[in-house]
């Protein structure tokens, strides 16, 4: 097994699994959000912020944000190794992705607990 690679789980199988588990969590979260918005057509601020003040919703959301981070990293890592054959360009791309993911994560935590 090849392990000297720069992917998230240090092995293709582990990345593959991370991608599936995070995909399922994201699927559940996406369906939940769409249904919630569909069933609350005249949504107001009180109801909306009330939802996000619940502990379970914050946990659920944080789980989704972490899943986005893992899912996007594994996914874009794969994309970058497929198309960017030049090490420097690939590294630069991955660095930007990593930074963006980090920003999204911190931003997400702040939105969830800062309100």
């Amino acid at each position, binding site marked *: 097994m090849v392990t000297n690679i720069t992917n998230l789980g240090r092995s293709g199988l582990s990345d593959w699994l991370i991608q*599936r588990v995070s*995909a*399922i969590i994201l*699927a559940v979260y*996406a369906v939940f959000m769409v249904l919630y918005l*569909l069933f609350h057509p005249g949504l*107001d*601020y009180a109801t*909306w*912020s009330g939802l*996000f003040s619940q502990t379970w919703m914050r946990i659920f959301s944080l789980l989704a944000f972490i899943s*986005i981070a893992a899912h*996007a990293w594994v*996914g*874009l890592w794969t*994309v970058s190794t497929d198309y960017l054959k030049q090490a420097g360009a690939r590294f630069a791309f991955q660095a930007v*992705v990593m930074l*963006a993911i980090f920003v*999204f994560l911190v*931003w*997400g935590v*702040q*939105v969830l607990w800062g*309100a």
Partner: protein
Amino acid sequence: MNSKRPVNLDLTTIKFPLPALTSIAHRITGVILFVGLIFGFWALDASLSSPEGFEAVRDTLANNVLAKLIAWGLLSALGFHFVAGIKHLLMDAGIGVDLEGGHRKAQITVVISAILVVLAGVWVW
């Protein structure tokens, strides 16, 4: 891959079967969704920040054509990525992994996604 064997990577002369097209579309929508996250986090942040922020997001989504287009585009990308992703997971589980199954599932993916894209448009407008 420095071997001298002949390769044809001229994409314009390669015929893409439907499953190849849905596969690359899954990849493209994945990248779009990543870029689109910035709008999603912005909307979530603003809408939860204060009643005024909430109204601002609502107003933007209700009246700004560009915002509507972005919302529609992102919902469509999510719809396709979602359906193709589920298809992917089914095939990982060994369901429909043959030439016929692959074709049929690619067709089903396109049809369901197209419906979702239309529904997303109806929703946004």
